């Protein structure tokens, strides 16, 4: 089922067009990646979804209905430029932000208690932000984003500035939130996390969507007919390209690029005549390669 639809959104700023006819569909209960180089228009798109800026034309629909500013209560948004009031105590601040999202004070307190315990940061309640490290502040920011249990979570570059430990924690939390029924959109430069987390992606470049769809399907469609073959003896090139050969503990590893018309079985048959085959696996291109290839086109 579809949770969010963006249809033909155009946003013009003085001097340049930030978004030019962008459409995308985010299925419910999934993780959606928004990729693209700096300045492609990701943040503008995210701000339009959050009703922070209005599109010049096109519309955003939540659950099939046109979005209104009241709907942002159901969104948790972690902006790229994020911070907290430096002089305010952590607990007070988290309560304030939760109440702004429409939670009652009592509910917010209860939920905060749960999350502070989960992240083992109960002792921070009366500390000021200026006394915390950046990584600590990010944990607090993450909690305030998800506290009101929104249906839709939007993270703009969530991993930028996170240390590896917190980044890993964040990844696990994102998947856990999805398992509990939330839908997550995030923008990132980190392609490894896209492969780990996302079911679907949109690649935005120069204000337009240049690539869109299911991550596995995209990778398959960008397949280069390259295979990894492990064998007992060295393979000789015969009707196919042989790219890399390495030998480890008496096992030879080869990368083979076959002709497009040839099927896997035909290739295997030919290899079988040469030597004992231990493993045979297609090498799919990583999202990083696809990203660079698509954007530099």
């Amino acid at each position: 089922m579809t949770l969010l639809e963006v249809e033909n959104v155009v946003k013009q700023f003085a001097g340049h067009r930030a978004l030019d006819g962008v459409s995308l569909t985010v299925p419910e209960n999934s993780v959606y990646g928004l990729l693209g180089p700096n300045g492609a228009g990701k943040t503008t798109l995210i701000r339009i979804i959050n009703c922070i800026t209005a599109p010049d034309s096109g519309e955003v629909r939540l659950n099939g209905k046109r979005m209104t500013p009241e709907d942002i209560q159901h969104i948790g948004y972690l902006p790229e430029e994020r911070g907290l009031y430096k002089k305010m105590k952590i607990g007070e601040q988290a309560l304030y932000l939760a109440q702004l999202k429409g939670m009652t004070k009592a509910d917010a307190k209860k939920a905060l208690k749960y999350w502070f315990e989960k992240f083992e940061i109960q002792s921070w309640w009366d500390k000021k932000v200026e006394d915390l490290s950046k990584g600590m502040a990010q944990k607090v920011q993450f909690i305030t984003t998800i506290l009101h249990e929104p249906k839709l979570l939007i993270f703009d570059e969530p991993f930028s500035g996170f240390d590896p430990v917190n980044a890993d924690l964040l990844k696990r939390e994102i998947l856990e939130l999805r398992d509990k029924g939330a839908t997550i959109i995030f923008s990132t430069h980190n392609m490894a996390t896209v492969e780990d987390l996302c079911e679907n992606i949109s690649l935005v470049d120069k204000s337009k969507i240049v690539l869109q769809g299911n991550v596995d399907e995209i990778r398959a469609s960008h397949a280069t007919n390259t295979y990894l073959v492990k064998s007992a003896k060295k393979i000789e090139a015969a009707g196919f390209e042989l790219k890399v050969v390495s030998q480890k503990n008496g096992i030879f590893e080869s990368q083979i690029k076959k002709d497009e018309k040839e099927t896997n079985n035909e290739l295997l048959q030919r290899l079988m005549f040469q030597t004992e085959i231990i493993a045979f696996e297609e090498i799919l291109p990583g999202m990083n390669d696809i990203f660079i290839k698509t954007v530099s086109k």
Partner: protein
Amino acid sequence: MSKISLIIKREYSTRVMKKSFILLTFLTPLLLVGMIALIVFLGQIKDDKIKKIIVVDKTKLYKEVLKNNESYIFQYSDEKLEDIKNRKEKKNEYVALLYISKDLRIDSTAAVLYSEKQVNLELKTYVSGLLNKYIEQQKLAAYNIPDLKEMVEKSNSNIDIKTIKWDENGKEKEGSAELALVIGMITAFIIYMFIVIYGAQVMSGVVQEKTNRIVEVVISSVKPFELMMGKIIGIAMVGLTQFLMWVVLTVGIMFGLSSAFAQNINLESVEKMQKMGQMGMQAAPASEMTASIQQLITAVNGLDYVQLIIMFILYFLGGYLLYASLFAAIGSAVDNETDTQQFSMPIMLPIIFAIYAGIFAAENPDGPLAFWCSIIPFTSPIVMMVRLPFDVPFWQIALSLSILVLSFIGTTWMAGKIYRTGILMYGKKVTWKEMWKWLKY
């Protein structure tokens, strides 16, 4: 609780809880009262010490003229001036030496006060007052006209023009131009101070939210306009709180002090007044002094306080709202507080101009400058406060207030447009041209 009231509450409570706010709020009245108390105190200890003045009177004419009082004792000496001057050992015993060389009727400059330190004004006034009076009487007596002294005293006049205002019903109100001037200038200056201080607070608050990067987090929950208005209203309440605390504390401390030392002070002031009366020509007699104080009190009572307070609050809020939203717009456009100076100058100029216009308006409250500056919204909150105690026609107040309200709605709307674009711009040097473009988004 609605979102804007949450924002107002946060802005208000974080500011009111600040140590600097609490210190300033409580220390200012204490300082004020302390300063007044210090002046009164210093004035009192001065009187306690009796000072000796040696008189060397060559003419021997003025023996009876110089009377002792509780501050000064006059001691006559037949020694030569040089002998006293050169006598080292007893120098601390007197503060000054009065030397009269000739008959003062013939040479009015024949009396000289010698001393090691500068002779204070009080002593000089006292001595010259006594001598003048005596010479005057002698001169009058020389005319040989009976009862001349009484005639002159009767013809002596001390005119103080009363100002009485007629209100619409023909009722008379006793007014005082000086008091009107003082009240007008004080209220105008307070409004000026509050606009500048709290306007700057709005600006730095916006800049801080931007540099802390909290602003986008907040406006994902509330509209940028709500955030801006919440901040402006919250800070206005901080300003009003501080002002009211100052008034209450100052009045409270003064009241407490004066009731504690009431008898003391009354006695002192009565004595002082009598002393001033004795001093002769310069000061008015005690009875006239009390008369003019009474007149001042009736003039103070004659002011329309209810009108004044209502107008003060209206013009304070109007002026603050007009400027605060502009300050917020500036704050949203820049990246750090040092950049604000360049942009806040054009906003500060009309405020500074208004205080000068206010000073001129006090001299001529119904002149064209005063009139126009009390109608134009950028100067009216300050200039109208100066004019108000001089009685301004109702239609002018109504016109000025409605223009002010329309203008602050206008500037707030404009500022809101600049604000909502500005707060999302990072790391960009902004120009006026660019801000003008944001207005049209």
